[in-house]
């Protein structure tokens, strides 16, 4: 439906298209001349400008009213999500790799100590305090300290603690729907009926 503005012969829809810059060059020039010549059309344009400014300024003001700390919290969540995705793409180091990494400050002294111990052991065994030659059984070579193979340990976040007892429910309301509690060991699950068909996201309004 076309709404004409007073006696101007210009439709409100065309004026809106002109205001929004949606007219072609020639059409826009024609409307511009009409607007310049008509106080009524000029007033309509000013109204559109004012309302646009009010909406813009109000939305920007609302955005400024949120404390920066809240946005920092949002950034923390974004970073965490990025980290989770990065972890999913890269394999986690094994427990033994982490152990070796944690010994980094002590590696050199440890290796030096072990080397000194091995040297001392060799010297002790090669030197002899017993004057009588003995036909000794070759002592078994001490096994070098080696990191044994182990199956890949499950990777758990360091802050996770195994639940000791589980949840204890003090009060429970199912909001009118049916529900139940189930507990096995330390695992407590509340089951609630929603009675819904599976939902999917739709894009268009």
């Amino acid at each position, binding site marked *: 439906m076309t709404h004409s503005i007073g006696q101007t012969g210009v439709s409100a829809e065309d004026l809106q298209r002109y205001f929004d810059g949606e007219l072609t060059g020639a059409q826009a020039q024609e409307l511009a001349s009409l607007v310049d010549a008509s106080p009524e059309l000029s007033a309509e344009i000013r109204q559109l400008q004012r309302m646009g400014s009010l909406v813009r300024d109000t939305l920007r003001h609302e955005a400024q009213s949120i404390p*920066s700390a809240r946005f920092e919290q949002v950034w923390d969540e974004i970073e965490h999500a990025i980290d989770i995705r990065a972890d999913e793409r890269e394999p986690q180091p094994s427990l033994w790799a982490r152990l070796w990494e944690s010994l980094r400050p002590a590696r050199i002294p440890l290796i030096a100590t072990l080397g000194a111990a091995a040297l001392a052991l060799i010297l002790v065994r090669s030197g002899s305090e017993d004057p009588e030659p003995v036909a000794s059984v070759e002592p078994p070579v001490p096994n070098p300290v080696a990191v044994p193979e182990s199956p890949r340990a499950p990777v758990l976040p360091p802050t996770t603690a195994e639940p000791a007892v589980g949840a204890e429910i003090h009060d429970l309301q199912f909001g009118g729907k049916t529900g139940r509690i189930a507990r096995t060991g330390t695992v407590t699950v509340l089951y609630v009926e929603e009675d819904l068909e599976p939902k999917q996201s739709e894009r268009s*309004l």
Partner: protein
Amino acid sequence: MRPQEADDHALVAACKAGDRDAFQVLYQRYHRRVFAVAHGFLRNSEDALDVVQEAFIKVHRALPGFEGQSSFYTWLYRIVANLCIDHLRRSSRKRGVTFDDRFRQDTSEAVAELQASSLGDPSRAVKNKEIVTAVATSLTELSDKHRAVLVMRELEGLSYTDMAKAMNCSKGTIMSRLFHARKNMQRLLKMRLDHLPADVDGNVDSMTEEPAS
């Protein structure tokens, strides 16, 4: 390409190379603007913050595929708008007053011109808390579709073509929605602001003071 756009592209290139700080700079640059759009659509601060979070996570995941044919913000904006539209489709928010999408002919006579004298210069008027409240409440009372086109047009300056793509409808539908959105908004503001004296000015500082975190 404007300087900021060139800077954005340099930051995106750094992000693609794994520079987390560069991505944080992009976040710092645009998070409030994204929030303003989302809050305009959704009229709920927590939902808008959720959209901010989801949008930047999506952007980070999709960065390898961003080729720079549009500006970074244009690309970010499309993601935000789509998330808001998805959100509106999922939620069935009940409002105290509902408005028909169409502009009823019988009320056309009642739609009065906004009195310039009651608002004064918009940039000063917005500082008046009552006006801000009136605008904010009126926005909330618009239908989702009307509010969406008003936010896209007035806040972001999107063309009818871009709005039609975002809302998956025709340009003609967008034009009609925007027309009726503006008329309804005028009527709501008139109802709320008609009592105000000609020159209004409020306490700017009290409205812009950051709440304690």
